[in-house]
């Protein structure tokens, strides 16, 4: 073999081109086109450089108390909302953009659950390297992307976020050393990711070829059902098969959901193990040109039989009935391309051509009916047909994972509870026990939440509340005045259970039954 050029890929290739880029599908751009600037490449991004743009009033706002959730009075600059309807988020949504710096500041200052976030990542009440060596990546206004930020304490994180005012921030792995010191290390290979939650990212844009109600960034409750199915299937596998317990699902703010598997065993997995989990869960494969997307061995693996059991009812209602995926001849042709028998297909095609507009549910039923009537090929046996139909069900319901996110230890993922700059919605945890009730379109928006604080009347008693109740109201933290409350409480419960297991892993076996996220 010739010359050894050893044009060995530079160390940061992977980081920039592959893993580390913020590929949660909710970026504003149309696909994964993320500006991939490293901190040092962007002249405006050096530490302490942002001062020049800071307004005087912001400096004052910044020196606010260190209290986690200061109970603050409504700020003057706040957009006014009509006093009659303080709780309706829609009122001001049209007026003020979620990415408005003032809105973001108030959100980070008054609503963001800093302490729980800290404990969640730190796994203990007192600061450890789990938090201190953890990478944060900040997306600032103007698409400046700061990587390798880290903070010794929750308070310093909060302060930095308040001073830099990122439109969002992401969470990466815990490194062997403080990410900020990586440049000073003589040997760069000593700077390595050690642990991170196992993450999953599911995005409705990956369902564009099978959802008929919406496309691209748009979603509605019909297509959100794909997400419901996905969460059920992945959650069941992670818990029953892999034995993970601390799993948090988070709404990504627009059209997707993230899972954070926080068990210690999951966090310390190397890339090979992450790849193994990802491969185990991945069923839908292939790009636009690959044709049949489901190719699974028979007999079906227990994970797939269980998934089919979960998915079959959804296929009937959420796919056949509400998506009507094969309404047009062109779409029906795709269904036929997944069936194994040419004669059967010809019979079906004839039948459907003669009744245009036939509903997908009927077409689905036609397959068996026509096959039974003998109009399918002679060679067609029922098992082959059944298996093909199972594959169709899987293609139209099985979770479509953005699998790269799960494969790499050093992939970054958007933090829970940040605000999606486009929709203003908060990335709240999803209660998997009441998954069907989750309505992404009703998730609190930052503008709505701020209005709720404004309109808060001390527990709804109005002006006539007694002195005692009023006194109590003084101690109520801002988030408790809003519809964010159940989500933060659920997060707190999740974090407490995690910390408890971390502290005392021995006793966890006895009491892990009810460790789901309680709302």
């Amino acid at each position: 073999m010739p010359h050894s050029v050893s044009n060995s890929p530079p160390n940061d290739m992977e980081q920039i081109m592959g893993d580390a880029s913020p590929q949660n599908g909710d970026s504003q751009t149309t696909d994964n086109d993320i500006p991939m600037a490293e901190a040092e490449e962007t002249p405006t991004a050096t530490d302490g450089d942002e001062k020049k743009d800071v307004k005087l009033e912001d400096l004052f706002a910044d020196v606010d108390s260190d209290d986690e959730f200061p109970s603050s009075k409504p700020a003057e600059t706040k957009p006014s909302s009509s006093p009659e309807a303080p709780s309706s988020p829609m009122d001001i949504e049209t007026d003020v953009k979620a990415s408005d710096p003032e809105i973001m500041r108030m959100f980070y200052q008054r609503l963001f659950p800093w302490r729980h976030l800290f404990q969640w990542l730190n796994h203990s009440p007192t600061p450890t390297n789990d938090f201190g060596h953890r990478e944060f990546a900040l997306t600032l206004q103007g698409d400046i992307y700061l990587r390798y930020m880290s903070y010794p304490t929750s308070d310093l994180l909060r302060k930095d976020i308040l001073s830099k005012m990122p439109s969002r921030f992401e969470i990466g792995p815990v490194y062997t050393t403080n990410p900020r010191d990586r440049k000073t290390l003589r040997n760069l290979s000593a700077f390595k990711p050690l642990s991170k939650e196992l993450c999953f990212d599911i995005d409705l844009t990956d369902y564009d070829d099978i959802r008929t109600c919406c496309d691209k960034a748009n979603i509605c409750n019909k297509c959100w059902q794909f997400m419901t199915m996905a969460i059920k299937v992945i959650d069941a596998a992670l818990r029953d098969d892999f034995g993970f317990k601390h799993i948090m699902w988070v709404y990504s703010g627009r059209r997707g959901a993230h899972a954070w598997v926080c068990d210690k065993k999951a966090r310390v997995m190397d890339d090979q193990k992450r790849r193994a989990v990802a491969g185990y869960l991945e069923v839908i494969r292939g790009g636009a040109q690959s044709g049949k997307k489901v190719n699974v061995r028979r007999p079906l693996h227990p994970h797939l039989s269980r998934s089919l059991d979960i998915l079959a009812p959804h296929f009937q209602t959420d796919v056949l009935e509400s998506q009507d995926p094969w309404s047009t001849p062109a779409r029906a042709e795709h269904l036929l391309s997944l069936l194994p028998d040419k004669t059967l297909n010809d019979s079906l095609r004839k039948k459907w051509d003669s009744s245009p507009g036939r509903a997908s549910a009927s077409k689905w039923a036609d397959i068996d009916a026509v096959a039974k009537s003998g109009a399918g090929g002679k060679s067609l046996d029922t098992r082959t047909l059944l298996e093909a139909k199972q594959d169709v069900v899987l293609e139209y319901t099985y979770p479509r994972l953005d699998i790269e996110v799960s494969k790499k230890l050093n992939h970054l993922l958007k933090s829970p509870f940040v605000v999606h700059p486009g929709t203003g919605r908060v990335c709240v945890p999803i209660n998997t026990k009441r998954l069907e009730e989750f309505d992404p379109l009703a998730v609190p928006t930052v503008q709505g939440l701020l209005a709720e604080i404004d309109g808060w009347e001390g527990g709804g008693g109005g002006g006539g509340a007694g002195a005692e109740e009023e006194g109590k109201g003084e101690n109520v933290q801002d988030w408790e005045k809003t519809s964010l409350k159940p989500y933060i409480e659920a997060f707190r419960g999740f974090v407490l259970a995690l910390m408890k297991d971390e502290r005392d892993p021995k006793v966890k076996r006895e009491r892990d039954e009810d460790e789901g996220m309680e709302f």
Partner: protein
Amino acid sequence: MLRQDYNRIDPKRRNVLDYRKKQFADPAYKETEYPHRLNFYATPPTADITLEQFEQWAIDRLRILAELEACSFRNKSPAETASHMKPLLEKYLPLDSNTSSSSKLFAERQKDHYSHFILRLAFASTEDLRRRFSRVETMLFRLRLNEDTLRERNAFVQSINLDCEPVTEEERNEYRDELAATAGFRKNNEDELWFKVDWERVPDLVEGRRVFLKAGKAYVPSREQASMVVAEFTQRLERALELTARALPRLDEDDRLTPILDHLSKNFTTPDASYNSSTSSVPGADISARNVDALSSHFPLCMQHLHRSLRRDSHLKHFGRLQYTLFLKGIGLNLEESLVFWRTSFNKVSDDTFNKEYKYNVRHSYGDVGGDSNRRGGGYSPFSCQKILTEHPPGPGEAHGCPYRHFNLENLNTLLQGVGISDRAVLQGVKQDKDSQKFHMACNRVFEYVHKKEIQKAKEEGIMTSAQLETIVHPNEYFKRSYLLKNLGKVKTEDVKMEG
């Protein structure tokens, strides 16, 4: 082994070298025995060997490893690899079984043992080398494990002490269906022995859904034990390599070994690394943004598909841009021209969007921006077939990857016909190659068809040697060879002859 060498530096460092002593130098000098053909290489060698043996044994093993790696790059099946390797192994690294009654058992096993440890030293220095070394050593180990007799294999497996729990009768009944579903088609799985281990011990079985999982335990049928043994081998080797890497700085002081080890690691090159910017470009060709359309007739199918997708959509997704940018860089399109090319191709986006979202990536690929190491390295190397075949398979709406692998047959045929290949025999051959997962073969088959006349001419006139016409395993090699062949006579023959 190497006892003298270590002792030479030992005295002044005795206090700090505990880990190294454990790793290399057993002070007891006890004669190593080799009861099994296979070796987990847990104990470092201690007897003396000559410097000549040191070098020769290492080179012999290296030959084997490089060949194994080449097999995997060429996508050979395990069976093909085994038959390809057989004569080479017999020649360079024979390893007979206990039943063979060979008189050379000890010598063979000693050479195997020592050469492994020498190469550990040579390849421990960087993470990349360590990864490659453990990958090919694992391939070698798997190959040998598979050809072991059942009895010897069992004896060996016993000796390495894999702790795993047998699945009880009760559990086997409880999970009868699940176990049956993962046992494959073997009907008599009632007799199958099962044991359960933490799933992390068998990641490849998990990844392929070949085991039943319950609460973090994998239920492994005994015939899959080989895969566990292999996983264990890799894991232990990786750990040992880390230790070796930490011990290496000490070794630098031995001036007799360093050049040998250095030389060994430099010779560990493979087809994958054979791309070289200085030899992949084509002298005299007009490699410019406006000429890419014309040049694209010389592109392999993967790049033609990217080019066509780009022209159709005025857009490519991230990995498509990356794959294509680096390919174009490889054919000699400079940064300036590349930026012109991408800007004009993305004709539906504004300057602002282009500058913000795409320009940086192109510049980064060329090493114009990025961290120090990126700039020093001149950006990234163009992707080899191996990389395109195995990394980042295309998702919905993505055009990168290898059409021979990532397209279904129908779409592949459409694409081939779209670029003018409709010969039945060729299409049939491509189908067979695809079915047997020989994607390189399919690509080379198409190349040979398209350049049939020219190849014949080049051979007849002795313009290109057969070495220069061997299997293409890099898209840039495809381009270069295609361009040269189609321009025979136009490009000066000396230039051609100097290649390769």
